[in-house]
């Protein structure tokens, strides 16, 4: 399976906001090294999951026609470690969406086993996406949309909320 850091979307408001869930399992390979005897989820992977949630939100707003790529993380703040057994919720809101790209405000909440409610705010970040210029990216990559392709499309059919259209 592709590098996908989302288990399921909880909510999806086209072009506006999305919430997605990830279960953090000790069986995930990176915990063996990060760190031996002290497993914490690597911060860049949390940003990646947040960017995937935001990237799918931004991509869907244009029916997955654009090649949405992460261009910049203007800031990211990490308030505490996330550990195995927790669930994290990526909470993403679109700040700007234009033909050239988009910006989202992202938050991650973490919830331990049995905890109710939204959980504790652990990460705040702003993420900037560019739409790869159609004309130029076609010369380089051809017609194929390499961002929203293959396994990701199939996975989206399963993890998007019911009634939400996956990429055609």
């Amino acid at each position, binding site marked *: 399976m592709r590098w996908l850091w989302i288990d399921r979307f909880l909510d999806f408001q086209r072009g506006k906001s999305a919430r997605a869930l990830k279960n953090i399992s000790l069986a995930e390979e990176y915990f063996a090294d990060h760190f031996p005897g002290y497993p914490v989820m690597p911060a860049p992977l949390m940003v990646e999951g947040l960017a995937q949630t935001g990237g799918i939100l931004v991509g869907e707003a244009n029916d997955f026609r654009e090649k949405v790529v992460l261009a910049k993380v203007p800031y990211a703040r990490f308030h505490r470690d996330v550990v195995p057994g927790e669930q994290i919720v990526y909470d993403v809101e679109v700040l*700007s969406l234009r033909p050239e790209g988009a910006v989202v405000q992202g938050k991650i909440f973490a919830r331990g086993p049995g905890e109710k409610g939204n959980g504790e705010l652990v990460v705040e970040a702003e993420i*900037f996406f*560019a739409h790869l210029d159609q004309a130029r990216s076609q010369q380089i990559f051809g017609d194929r949309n390499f961002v929203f392709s293959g396994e990701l499309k199939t996975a989206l059919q399963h993890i998007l909320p019911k009634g939400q259209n996956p990429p055609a």
Partner: protein
Amino acid sequence: MPTRDEIFTKVSETLVEALNVDADEVKPESTLQGDLGAESIDFLDIVFRLEREFGIKIPRGELFPESIFQGDPEFVKDGKVTEKGLSELRARMPFADISDFEKDPQVIKIGELFTVELITRYVEIKVKEAAANPQSAPQGA
């Protein structure tokens, strides 16, 4: 209507956020690329932030034109912008002060036109336009 000083202050704050520079590095004459280290993607980030901050609409390529001199081979000769090219520049960027540039219009120095002052002047014009035509303001601004 904000004064020019107020606009400059907000433009500076925007650049501090977008480029991760210190506030005291941002002076009117600072160039975005040379002094403040802006890269191509930062220009788009700056445009998005200015739109949100000032509630204005910045059409693609208006503040930061991508290829002014590619339209006509007569715009540039031997690495210098021709008189025709300078006219094009004035037409496309009426908010730019090209009085220094036109003394030695080497095309590679075009980036030096893009200063904090230029953005401030541009925003001032757009804010006035938006005040004159409230309907044209972007939704949600």
